[in-house]
């Protein structure tokens, strides 16, 4: 980011302050913990996906059978579709709203300090609490949302959570509501790093606020926005709390995203092998998206 850090990193003078043994000792605990509690479970998940286990008793090796069952089951494909819809829609909304909010705050809009603090609040409260509140608010007739809509003359009997085709909408709304704050802060950080002289130059060239946004702010903040988008996609794809607290994947299987399906396969149908296979499929997909995306984005970042 700055020239000083580039000079400091890899500074030979500093290396003499700590020999290899010390560095190893300092960094080992973190690496060991990671290996034990992140690395090993991944291996174990793959092992389990090649077995048949009912949650109690011994594992039975079945090779790739779980994968063929899972991938040929129409429910899996439907769940993947639901998950992609949910993640894509949420991410787009999160990014668009967060970017606009960040543009507003970085341009020094009125009360921007207040906004910085307040707009992150939904991300602080436990998502389970927010989801329970919103599930209540979305109920027809007695829910807060319907009451407000009714007062505005837009009808008060909407039952979004009851209709299969629409049940995903309240879930997306709550996901966006809880996630915008975090994305907003990161994107704001990136926007604030933009040199104000660039804005001056644009202003002198006669550009108004909107065109300054398009020609200066967006291009320079783009790498960060792209990375936040990828991260939000990964987190929403992986999201469990909001859906479980609001609909448990229902009605029917309308909001059964992959994490919900994995949980149900494991803890309701006691098909732990299949659940593991499902999670490996989803995990592999995400790791691919994540690593590729971060490589593309990270190369421009520092």
């Amino acid at each position, binding site marked *: 980011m700055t020239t000083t*850090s580039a000079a*400091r*990193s*890899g*500074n030979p003078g*500093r290396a003499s*302050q*700590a020999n290899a043994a*010390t*560095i190893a000792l*300092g*960094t080992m*605990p973190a*690496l060991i*913990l*990671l290996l034990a*509690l992140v690395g090993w*479970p991944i291996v*174990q*998940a793959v092992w389990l996906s090649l077995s048949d286990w009912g949650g109690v008793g011994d594992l039975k090796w079945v090779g790739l059978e779980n994968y063929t069952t899972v991938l040929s089951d129409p429910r899996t494909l439907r769940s993947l579709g639901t998950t992609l819809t949910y993640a894509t829609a949420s991410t787009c909304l999160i990014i668009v709203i967060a970017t606009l*909010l960040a543009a*507003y705050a970085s341009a020094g*809009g009125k*009360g921007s300090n207040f*906004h*910085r603090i*307040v707009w992150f*609040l939904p991300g*602080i*409260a*436990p998502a*389970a*609490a*927010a989801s*329970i*509140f919103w599930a*209540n*608010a979305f109920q027809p007739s*007695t829910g*807060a949302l319907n*009451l*407000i809509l009714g007062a505005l003359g837009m009808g008060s009997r909407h039952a979004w959570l009851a209709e299969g085709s629409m049940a995903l909408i309240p879930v997306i709304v709550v996901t966006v509501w809880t996630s915008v704050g975090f994305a907003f*802060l990161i994107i704001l950080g990136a926007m*604030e790093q933009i040199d104000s002289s660039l804005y001056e130059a644009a202003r002198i060239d006669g550009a108004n606020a909107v065109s300054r946004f398009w020609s200066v702010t967006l291009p320079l903040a783009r790498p960060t926005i792209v*990375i*936040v988008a990828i*991260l939000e996609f*990964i*987190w929403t794809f*992986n999201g*469990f*709390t909001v859906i*479980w*607290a609001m609909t448990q994947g229902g009605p029917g299987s309308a909001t059964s995203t992959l994490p919900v399906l994995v949980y149900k396969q494991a803890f309701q149908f006691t098909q732990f092998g299949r659940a593991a296979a499902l999670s490996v499929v*989803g995990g592999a997909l*995400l790791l691919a998206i*994540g*690593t590729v995306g971060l490589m593309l984005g*990270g190369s421009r*970042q520092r």
Partner: protein
Amino acid sequence: MIARILSRGTVQVAAATWSILVIVPFVLIFVLSLRSNADIYANGLGVGGTLRPENYLAAWAGAGATTGMSVYFWNSIVVAVVAMTVNLAAGVTAAYFSTFLSEKWRRRFLNVFVVASVVPLILMIIPFYQVYNALGVLNQPWAVGIAYAVITLPTTILIMQAFYVDFPKELCEAAALDGAGPWWTYLWIVLPLSKGAVTAVSLLVLIFVWGETQVGVILLQDSLAQTVPVGLLSFQGQWTTNLGALFAGLAIASFPIMAIYLIFSKQITKGITMGGFGGR
């Protein structure tokens, strides 16, 4: 000219609308938490009706023989303390000492954690269950604290290493010249000066612990061992005839952590933007 005023006006209205959208649910939670069940059915916006602060006592103690928020609160504190301790001890130390690595190795070291930060939790929940069961530490909040410490380790390391890269090294070099070893320098010179960043990462860990459910729901099945977010999921089922107490429970779950955030908001936002992409 008019377009300019209009656009500025609409922009401010839009910002204000989002602010309202963000605040109103919390206001509603608070208002509804003071109403009786009948009042909530009469008016779902909490207008009118008597004030019932007893709802908070009910939510705190639990219905009948069921678990109340007090148990969940205490468990969350235990988990948070363990998670923060392990995370900071391992993470801050690793981040500091990683700055001594050559550029190539430092990048590799960080990439390990970057990749780890995107590993989907769904992959890990079943193996977690197997290991914890085999070790006999299911339903132990402190054991879950360790899991959380590791899950948030990438966040801590990414933020702290960004901080330490910009850290003024003259002090360390001076101490080295005086004969101080690297550990002594770390503990007595570097750490005291890292208070701001360390506060930021510890609060991020706290926020994560306070909200995580996917792993918690697997590892904490006994309601007496559950943390606040996990307990909330079954809390719903206990208060179906007293919605006021349910909202009181939501308030107890949310307001303290929000208060902590409001007090430390500057450190937290600085930490997030500094680390780039903290991760949850």
